């Protein structure tokens, strides 16, 4: 360290008096709201911690389990953070391909290949799990065997779960198809038993329309050979919800959210939410949002956050809520994005939420808060998509 070179008295007051306020006016309110959310999440967290402790105690008493865990630890590389692109850049939230296929090489050796006219979304990118949704088109996921992450790919109502394998998910208007090239995958579909597919096997999952015939808006997909399972023929029929519930669920499953909302109505939506679990709450909120009923959607997202703050879907709900609030209620939006930051397991959702929180706080007039969050963003995502705007925010 260099010796002091300045001359004369400089600080003639307590050091604290030369520093800016640790908590700007108005920030106490934000912190209080954040604290309340944390308080609400505390019981679930404690329960989760207790469950974990109990699980570890059991594992500790079982020598075989311990040996197996050691083997797994040796074989599997420990997860160090969210999955990034091979070049070190963050994996974007939104993946898409238009006229040509788009390839995403990932830093763990895995690869995602999107066929033309494909849209996918990474909704969670955590050290132990990556969760993607396929909005349309076809995507091949080449997951490195022995990796630390569980991969979950959702296409409409179908859900595919794997650890290390290569498989393709195709989603067209009313049909979802899963084909496995290597390894084993589990395909979940509401109302059906879990299908286990091995290398070379495919499954095509049709979404029936109200009258039980294929939706004419989309051409039926010719399933690839060999077809080991055709649930419409071999599996038991899905559990049939009664009356209007069946109707709105079917419409939502094939992406007709406006139709689903028309059946439910605002009152029906809230009544259905009364006893809904987090997954159903999120579906109901999405129906409201996508059918352009933001007030209903915001109410449901808030319910999900309040009822199940520790659930994996709570940060997703908070993120959607923040996006809806951003235009008119920037302060509330900042609080919602802050929730994402404190509750999400990691990854691209946090990156976006952090950037959006800083922007919302700035719009709400909380410059100090905005700058603090911008610094957190730059520290965590120096090459992130919003890094430049965060730099500009700090230098402005």
């Amino acid at each position, binding site marked *: 360290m260099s010796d002091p070179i300045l001359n004369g*008295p400089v600080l*003639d007051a*307590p050091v*604290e008096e030369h520093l*800016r306020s640790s908590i700007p006016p108005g920030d106490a309110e934000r912190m209080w709201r954040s604290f309340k959310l944390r308080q609400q999440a505390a019981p679930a967290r404690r329960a989760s911690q207790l469950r974990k402790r109990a699980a570890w105690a059991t594992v500790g008493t079982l020598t075989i389990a311990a040996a197996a865990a050691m083997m797994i630890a040796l074989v599997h590389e420990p997860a160090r953070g969210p999955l990034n692109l091979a070049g070190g850049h963050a994996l974007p939230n939104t993946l898409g391909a238009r006229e040509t296929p788009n390839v995403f090489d990932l830093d763990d050796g895995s690869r995602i290949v999107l066929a033309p006219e494909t849209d996918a979304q990474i909704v969670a990118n955590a050290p132990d799990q990556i969760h993607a949704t396929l909005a349309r088109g076809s995507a091949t996921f080449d997951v490195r065997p022995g990796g630390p992450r569980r991969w979950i790919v959702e296409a409409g109502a179908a859900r595919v779960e794997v650890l290390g394998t290569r498989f393709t998910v195709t989603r067209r208007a009313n049909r979802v198809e899963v084909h496995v090239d290597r390894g084993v995958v589990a395909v979940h579909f509401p109302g059906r038993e879990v299908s286990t597919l091995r290398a070379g096997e495919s499954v095509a999952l049709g979404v029936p329309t109200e009258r039980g015939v294929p939706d004419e808006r989309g051409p039926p997909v010719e399933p690839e050979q060999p077809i080991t399972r055709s649930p419409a023929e071999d599996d038991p029929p899905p559990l049939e919800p009664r009356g209007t519930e069946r109707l709105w669920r079917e419409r939502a499953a094939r992406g007709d959210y406006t139709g689903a909302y028309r059946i439910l109505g605002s009152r029906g939506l809230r009544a259905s939410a009364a006893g809904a679990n987090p997954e159903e709450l999120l579906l109901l909120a999405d129906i409201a949002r996508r059918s352009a009923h933001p007030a209903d959607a915001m109410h449901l997202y808030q319910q999900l956050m309040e009822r199940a703050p520790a659930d994996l879907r709570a940060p997703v709900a908070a993120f959607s809520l923040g996006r809806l609030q951003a235009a008119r209620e920037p302060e509330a939006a900042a609080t919602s994005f802050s929730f994402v930051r404190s509750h999400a397991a990691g990854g691209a959702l946090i990156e976006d939420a952090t950037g959006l929180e800083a922007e919302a706080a700035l719009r709400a007039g909380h410059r100090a808060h905005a700058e603090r969050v911008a610094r957190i963003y730059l520290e965590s995502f120096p090459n992130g998509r919003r890094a430049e705007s965060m730099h500009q925010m700090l230098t402005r």
Partner: protein
Amino acid sequence: MRAGRLRLDRSMNAPLDVRAMHRPRRASVHVLREGPNDAALVARAIEADPWASEQLYKRHVGIAMTTALRLLRNRAEAEDVVQDAFMLAFGRLKQLREPAAFRGWLTRIVVSSVHRRLRRRRVEPLDGLEAEAAADASPMVRAELKLLDEVLNQICDRQRVPWILRYVLGYKLEEVAAACDCSLATAKRRVRAAHDVVQRHVSVGERGR
């Protein structure tokens, strides 16, 4: 020089002279003082009155945040510590023997949480004294604060924390001892040890005591 003040003064090639007095003014801390006193609020909070909990929180979050921020020098970590400290405090309100001493008790929880966090992992001092300088601080003041930051980086946590409580936040030695949950003699010894390191670069003297 006014009592209760701390001053840095130097001549060319001489070390900085920091003169610390008893209890500096905490101008940058917003403390809500209207309404019922702490003892009344604590009593109502124990009865699960949400308004009382909110008032207690808003009244003391400023001082708690200032303490955590100056000790950790990292705003995000400090906010996390403060929220955890309130969580712990509100969960154990019934154990508080003197409700009027809520602030001191909370400070002790904050300092203890800071120690625990520093023990567990290295906290990057992203928001050091210089980074937290007031908007109207002159370049020279910023240079002084930067120098102080560098000196503080050389001191171990067990000694730096009491020194910051004493010289940056202006706590009495008795308060430092209470916050650090140690004896007065230990607090004095740790402050003195940190002080010796600071004085190699920054001459610190106390007047008017």
